[in-house]
């Protein structure tokens, strides 16, 4: 335990911000370039996790436990979101026999 605590002593906060923003942008790119609705959904999960990691890093940095409680709430929210979202995807698949989002472009108007 002492070892682990010593590990983070030398990492600047900027590195955490950098890591989280890289993973967040990978999620953004995933949403933009894929057509499979489930993969898009997974990219959204990736973005949520990047934010979670950054919140935890800031919480440790400031020595305030509220950040970690907030991450806990985000996880509960993500679970609810995944349940409803996957149900919607299953329903779309049943109606259109595809989860290609380009089939859904009638939602534009």
């Amino acid at each position: 335990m002492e070892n682990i605590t010593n590990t983070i002593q030398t990492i600047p906060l900027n590195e955490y911000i950098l890591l989280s923003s890289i993973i967040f942008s990978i999620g953004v790119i995933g949403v933009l370039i894929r057509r499979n609705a489930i993969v898009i959904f997974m990219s959204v999960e990736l973005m949520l996790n990047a934010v979670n990691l950054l919140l935890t890093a800031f919480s440790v940095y400031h020595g305030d436990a509220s950040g970690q409680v907030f991450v806990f709430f985000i996880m509960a929210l993500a679970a609810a979101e995944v349940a409803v979202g996957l149900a919607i995807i299953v329903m779309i698949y049943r109606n259109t026999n595809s989860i290609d989002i380009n089939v859904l472009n009638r939602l534009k108007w």
Partner: protein
Amino acid sequence: MNTFYFIAFLSIFFSILVITAKNPVHSILYLILTFFTFTIHYILLNAQFLAIVNFIVYMGAILVLFLYTLMLINLNKESEPAKSNLVKIAGVIGGCCFLVTIIASLKALGASPAVVLKDPSLGLVKNLGKVLFNEYLLPFEISSVLLLSAMVGAVLLATKEPKTT
């Protein structure tokens, strides 16, 4: 120190694989690996409660849900029509612009102090439980209502409509 950079490299590597894998099932498996590296990040930050919750909720529940849905609607073949290259390049450029903006603003801030764990018991269950049930009791109760409504909504959406004849 080196552990952090190695795990960070793994996170980025696997998350790139998530969005580039052709087969959606491979995507999900890479996503599991990505979340595992996130768990290690939490352990490195000594946020033990979050590490366990991340492990159970994300890797255990959410990804199994993804995998079940994908296999139930039988999309594990590589049938996804690719987007046109123009859209792909535009998407990558858009994401990179976002990244460059954040990095530039980070550079403008200059060097930051190191992340120092002042209180080693910060992320332990005992400490977090006290904060959660003292200051955040109402949001905690409301999130239970949210989970209930999500469950009802998911069941309502996913069940087939009864024949109304």
